[in-house]
């Protein structure tokens, strides 16, 4: 069973299918939006298409951040090292959706006005924290290639990419501060993030004696453990 799963996860086709699946939410927005621009009517986007697109791209950003953060726990629990092959793609999709989210807001709500945008970033705390998350995600997207892992060295690279913990937290806070009164969805995302982070904390705790032993025993660079 586990072997079969490993085989499926290792297949190039599975990755192609996963890539296509990640694009579905985008296509479900893009096609009606093109229809709206050409015919002036797209019932799929509801009565307020701009709001709909903003909310959906925001939703998918948080979802992809959480899915990305779920890869390592799942990889360890299921003992499926091949899951790691999907992590970069999923993280980049989070970046893709947050860019769409930002562009929708900047173009359709702020009408390309940098001064209006800055005023909001400085004044509205949910926008401040959202922009902070977006800003932190940029270096991660840039350094997501194998070349950058080599250039930075794995330890440094891994340390940099732990920023995703704070990015996901920024996303959840951004959403929580935005809603008017019904906080169920942001709290649910927050709870999922808490579970994913607790897992990491316990794994880190358990490994503490081992880490200390390694540090004391050999002053040589540690052999890189699998990225988490």
């Amino acid at each position: 069973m586990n072997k079969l799963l490993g085989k499926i996860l290792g297949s190039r086709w599975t990755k192609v299918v996963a890539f296509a699946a990640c694009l579905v939410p985008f296509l479900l927005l893009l096609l009606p939006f093109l229809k709206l621009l050409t015919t002036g009517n797209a019932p799929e986007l509801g009565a307020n298409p701009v709001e709909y697109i903003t909310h959906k791209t925001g939703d998918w950003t948080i979802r992809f951040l959480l899915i990305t953060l779920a890869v390592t726990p799942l990889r360890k629990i299921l003992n499926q090292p091949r899951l790691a092959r999907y992590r970069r793609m999923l993280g980049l999709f989070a970046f893709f959706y947050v860019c769409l989210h930002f562009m929708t807001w900047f173009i359709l709500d702020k009408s390309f006005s940098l001064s209006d945008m800055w005023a909001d970033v400085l004044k509205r705390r949910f926008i401040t924290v959202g922009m902070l998350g977006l800003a932190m995600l940029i270096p991660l997207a840039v350094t997501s290639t194998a070349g950058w892992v080599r250039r930075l060295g794995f330890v440094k690279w891994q340390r940099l990419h732990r920023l995703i913990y704070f990015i996901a937290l920024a996303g959840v806070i951004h959403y929580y501060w935005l809603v008017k009164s019904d906080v169920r969805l942001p709290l649910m995302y927050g709870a999922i993030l808490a579970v994913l982070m607790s897992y990491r904390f316990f794994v880190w705790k358990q490994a503490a004696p081992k880490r200390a032993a390694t540090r004391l025993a050999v002053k040589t660079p540690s052999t890189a453990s699998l990225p988490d």
Partner: protein
Amino acid sequence: MLIRKPADLRYSDVTPKQMYINRRSFLAGSLALGALAGAARAGKLSDVKKSSYDAGGDKLTPLEAITHYNNFYEFGTDKSDPAENAKNFRTSPWTLKVEGEVAKPKTFDLDGLFKIAPLEERIYRHRCTERWSIVVPWIGFPLSALLQQVEPTSKAKYVAFETYYDAKQMPKGRWAGIEFPYVEGLRLDEAMHPLALLAVGLYGDTLPNQDGAPIRLVVPWKYGYKSAKSLVKIRLVEKQPPTTWNLSAPNEYGFYSNVNPKVDHPRWSQAKERRLGELLNRDTLMFNGYPEVASLYAGMDLRKYY
């Protein structure tokens, strides 16, 4: 059915034909549904006078948007929830009580609501605090007509509104994050202003459930949440009454809640709005484009009394 339409302006002048066709099928659906639910008064309203209120000629928002993009938290917090969850909302029997500091308290049943005063159609802009807006052809009568009938006493300074709440019919309300029943309020002089309307219909028909059937308040110069839906009680009182959103977040929602492009909501600017059906924002107007109410607030600091 008796159908009388204003002669000078037809919906086809302002509403795309496609919308009309949708409206017919919607009406057919709602009639069938009304029959099922035993609603006594679903359907066309007759004897409706045309009024001069035309929102400055702004294009009417299609009925589809007015009925499928709603904030009615008792039926769920998603804009599409009320259309779905208010389908079987029972508006018959219904009573609206008018009481408090009045000489002649009155209680109206469902039929009585439509006979309080002559019905007229008024096209009003409606601006939500969430920065979207619509243009609605309401049918109703001035709130002042009702208040005059009950004869407020000299103690009456404010009008408190209470809306229907039944956790059984509105199970989604428990997740709304605000207290129910929903309460709202106006100063008596605001309530007596000719613009303040009690609506029993829109687009020629009785109110759809999700828009506040069978009777709701419409205060077009204030943010949408002041226009309480599905009213069951109107109480004239001496002191400023509590209002739901103010109780929930006092720094964000004041008692007055006048549409004001210069006073921001703490979390967003109110300078612009998105008219449903338009892609880009348009400027928000002071008092939502109803400058005739300005005298109600003469000498008041509208930053302080937001």
